[in-house]
């Protein structure tokens, strides 16, 4: 009974963990099945990178979904989403440094400073690192009001990650979708827009309850 009640309030958390681990499981499975026939390095790089970006954007979406749409439960999974984003970003970076460039420091240095998409990606990762470290409740308490300010850097990391994606491809149609999502997330952070959206939502709700009661 106790377990059941505990699970009931946590379905979103459980779903988040499962969904976030799925791409990693698939990667391992596909690799085991020898599906990466042609260019395994590229396959691992793009999959981990894209998962990291999606998770990062989802973590950034939690607050707006909570305040604007009124679905407060999502705030409980924000931390997990952020940490998973960091884990995938680490795998992504490790693939780049180890599998792709064979830990050849001279080549890696050249890659970072001669290819601006690598620079943007590295910067995004560098921003995520302190955020991942200070994501615990202990650090949250220790940093007090600074914690929130520090963790706003996640938005900057999101911008850099999307820019990284736009800069590295030949055909920008796919990354443009991420640009649109990020723009939306940033837009709803603008106070005027946020107020307008939640105002409409409340009016909409009031209308629904009014029609209901009049029936």
């Amino acid at each position, binding site marked *: 009974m106790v377990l059941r009640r505990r699970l009931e309030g946590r379905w979103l958390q459980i779903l988040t963990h499962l969904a976030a681990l799925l791409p990693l499981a698939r990667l391992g499975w596909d690799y085991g099945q020898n599906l990466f026939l*042609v260019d395994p390095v590229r396959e691992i790089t793009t999959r981990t990178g894209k998962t990291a970006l999606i998770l990062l954007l989802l973590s950034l979406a939690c607050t707006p979904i909570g305040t604007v749409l009124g679905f407060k439960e999502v705030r409980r999974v924000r931390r997990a989403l952020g940490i998973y984003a960091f884990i995938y970003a680490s795998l992504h970076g490790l693939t780049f440094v180890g599998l792709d460039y064979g830990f050849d420091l001279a080549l890696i240095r050249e890659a970072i400073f001669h290819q601006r998409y690598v620079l943007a990606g590295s910067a995004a990762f560098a921003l995520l690192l302190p955020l991942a470290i200070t994501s615990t409740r202990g650090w949250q308490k220790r940093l007090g009001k600074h914690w929130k300010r520090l963790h706003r850097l996640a938005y900057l990391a999101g911008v850099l990650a999307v820019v990284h994606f736009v800069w590295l491809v030949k055909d920008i149609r796919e990354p443009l979708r991420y640009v649109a999502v990020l723009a939306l997330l940033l837009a709803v952070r603008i106070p005027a827009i946020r107020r307008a959206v939640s105002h409409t939502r409340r009016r909409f709700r009031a209308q629904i309850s009014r029609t209901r009661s009049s029936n």
Partner: protein
Amino acid sequence: MVKINPSEITPEHVYISRRKFMVGLGALVAGSLALSACGKQDPLPSPTPARANGTATLSPSANTDELGDKLTSYDAITNYNNYYEFSIRKEQVARLAQDFKTSPWAVQVGGLVHKPKTFDLDDLFKFTQEEQIYRLRCVEAWSMVIPWAGFPLAKLLQEVEPMAKARYVRFETLYDPEQMPGQKSGGYNWPYVEGLRLDEAMLDLTLLATGLYGKPLLPQNGAPVRLVVPWKYGFKSIKSVVKIDLVEEMPTSLWMAAAPREYGFYANVNPGVSHPRWSQATERRIGENKRRQTLKFNGYAEQVAHLYTGMDLKQWY
């Protein structure tokens, strides 16, 4: 006929079907010889210097190119394709292109020529088909080694007799959105267009390819006939060609129109000239784990560097 030994890297079904293809090729060659015996001659003597040693003389059974680099597997070559007319996802092109109709086919050759002519598949196979093992370096910094079958573009151009004022060659891919779903989406100025300077086009290294690994080209690789310009980035090697025009002005390629700052007309492989957004210093050879240094002109400097003497390759990227 050329003797073919099954190599350790060639799967059995590939070399067996290659053997069949070579027999077919032999018949075609014999046919064209019979035709030329009836008085049909090449209209012009070749204006290009003799082919440099090494690249032309490799037997079809070679496992490597002239630098000792291993051939890329047939599976990789036929399942990893940049062919935006079908999909921007390399792994999906093969599936989306499988029903592409490559016969009948016509290549219309015209513009500034004395004898414009439309070549059908039979006409194209009348040219002696030879195997050429070339490195292919994609602008995205990956590469392959591919045993093509085909004939020098120069042979075809000699037949239509370019006029003296012709300076460039302009190529066009088929435009057929019904068959090529990628052409339905915007973003690019379809059909695909590419171009070469006439002297580049007349080099024996420049190939019109009709096959690879001893088999006819598959749609995902540009069937039935495509250009192969091994010292330039892969996007110059236009696929499924239907139109070749000799022109006076430098043609604007699809990529030049789409992103003029990023893709120039020349697009010579050059580790010293970065793409504006990424380095071209190294590449990943498909099938290998370690990155390798990119070679200037993709390792064909000896044959092609003289075409660009005095040119600033940073400016003419």
